[in-house]
């Protein structure tokens, strides 16, 4: 059982000061024109007031959209490789929704099985999450269908739930959470008697993910993939806003003196993703790529790593220019006879 405390709303500013003087940067949801995204903040006043979900996820903190894997210099016919010295700043992600917080474990499963990806691991190690339960949800949210919930503690080091008074119920989940409390123990008072559940959004269960995984085991040749993906334009927006999509590309950029090898986010929705140089493409039409996206998340990852590759944040549906709604499509698959 996580230890419970009360964090007064007036104390947030002091908590931020303590975190900063401990050398940590704080990332929190910030409003930028019509989008809300995680950015560095120095005080709670800078945090977006009302939001259900940030437009983009906080995945970039552990897995940047584009990062250098190495640098090299050309010297006549020789090449000198400069290894990347990775020293990520200690980071606190404040206000992360429970769905997003749970997403880190999916990334970790891929980056840390077999070969160990130090780029990801060193960032994850330096990252602490002060999550924020959801008081509100919208029609795109479906965390409860994939094993999560609006007050789920998985992935958070401390989970805050905003109470009626505006103060926060703080659940201290991990050692990293304890460490944060120890920076400012006076700010964390005795737990209130309020029941956390009363303040959580209602997120109805839309389908059973285990049933979906079972169903997908024999769904590969179904015609529904074509029907569902007819309006997909293959833009990849769903993958780029997804907190758990982990597929990437490796590319070089250089001039005559030297260059860098970069890894950048990629998407299985792009036709180039699997295209061979010969012209052969194992997934040559969009319906096959849509099927891969769904199968990877709800069949292959569960089969291989016993995790669901989706946390139900709903961003893919909110961002889709063709108005494809993942949860509706998944429901349709489960309900197909």
């Amino acid at each position, binding site marked *: 059982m996580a230890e419970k405390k009360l964090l007064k709303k007036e104390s947030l500013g002091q908590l931020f000061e303590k975190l900063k003087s401990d050398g940590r940067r704080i990332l929190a949801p910030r409003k930028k024109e019509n989008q809300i995204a995680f950015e560095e903040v120095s005080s709670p006043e800078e945090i977006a007031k009302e939001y259900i979900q940030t437009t983009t996820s906080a995945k970039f903190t552990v897995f940047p959209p584009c990062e250098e894997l190495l640098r090299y210099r050309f010297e006549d016919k020789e090449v000198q*490789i400069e290894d990347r010295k990775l020293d990520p700043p200690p980071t606190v992600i404040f206000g992360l929704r429970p769905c997003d917080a749970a997403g880190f474990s999916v990334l970790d499963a891929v980056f840390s099985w077999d070969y160990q990806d130090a780029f990801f691991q060193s960032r994850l190690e330096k990252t602490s999450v002060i999550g924020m339960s959801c008081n509100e949800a919208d029609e795109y949210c479906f965390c409860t269908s994939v094993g999560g919930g609006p007050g789920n503690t998985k992935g958070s080091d401390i989970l805050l739930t905003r109470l009626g008074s505006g103060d926060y119920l703080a659940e201290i989940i991990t050692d990293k959470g304890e460490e944060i409390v120890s920076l400012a123990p006076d700010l964390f008072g005795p737990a209130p008697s309020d029941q956390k559940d009363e303040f959580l959004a209602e997120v109805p269960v839309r389908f059973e993910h285990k049933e979906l995984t079972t169903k997908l085991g024999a769904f590969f040749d179904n015609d529904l993939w074509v029907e569902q993906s007819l309006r997909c334009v293959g833009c990849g927006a769903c993958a780029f806003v997804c907190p758990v999509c982990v597929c990437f590309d*490796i590319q070089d950029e250089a001039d005559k003196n030297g260059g860098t090898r970069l890894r950048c986010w990629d998407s299985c929705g792009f036709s180039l993703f699997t295209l*061979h140089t010969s012209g052969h493409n194992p997934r040559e039409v969009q319906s096959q790529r849509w099927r891969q996206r769904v199968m990877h998340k709800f069949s292959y990852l569960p089969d291989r790593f016993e995790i669901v590759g989706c946390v139900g944040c709903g961003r893919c549906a909110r961002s889709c220019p063709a108005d494809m709604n993942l949860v509706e499509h998944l429901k349709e698959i489960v309900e197909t006879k």
Partner: protein
Amino acid sequence: MTGPNIYKPYLMKIGKITDEAPGVKTFRLLFQDEEKGKNFSFKAGQFGEYSVFGEGESTFCIASSPTHTGYIECTFRQAGRVTTALANKEEGDTIGFRGPYGNTFPLEDWEGKNLIYIAGGIALPPLRCVIWNSLDLRDKFKDITIIYGARAVADLVYKHELEEWEQRDDVKLITTVDPGGETLEWKGEIGFVPAVLEKEAPPCENTIAMICGPPIMIRLTLPVLDKLGFAPENIFTTLENRMKCGIGKCGRCNVGKYYVCKDGPVFTLAQLKELPPEY
């Protein structure tokens, strides 16, 4: 950085370049750091990521045999950005190599068996590694047969080695070219690989078949092997899905829940029958 950079390549010196066929070259690569070269080992069937700094990485098998130490070789056709940059390299130039990656042909399980290699065009390199590996351990295997076809005589790779295998009496080599691809001097077969295999009709008893070639050749050859009585467990191939990382992260080579780069590239036909047809 908490651990080593798993994306950092070895620096390799191009020791020797051999022109194999139009657009096809073999590089012999030496480790710039001799100590690393000494400690490097791999097994038949494994692959690597070869890079031209400034252009990117490309995936090929290691085409030399693990029994030949001190260097590795790769054979590639100039086709895209990286292979074009590779083709423009000269002896003495430096390129990158990450590997060895992936699983292997289980040669140690095949002692006392007949081996038949079936390859088409530019797909001989992955089998060349196993061919030399088995020839260097010749006593451990029974009959060794190689059936190799290409569109035209000029497209046959490893011409000197084909001559060597031709002359050895402990290996049976059958070469073939597509109709119209022959020259006046051509003494081999004329016809497609599946037809040549059917005519040759090697016995399936106690025999392992390895097949590598363009998808169309594989598709038409498998029914012939089936007709000859080869069990799916005894037919091996290597998949060549597009890859970037080579180490089970980037998600590009997925076929179902498998990573071709980790669970492959070597698969039996029995395993392939369980996979979605995305290769």
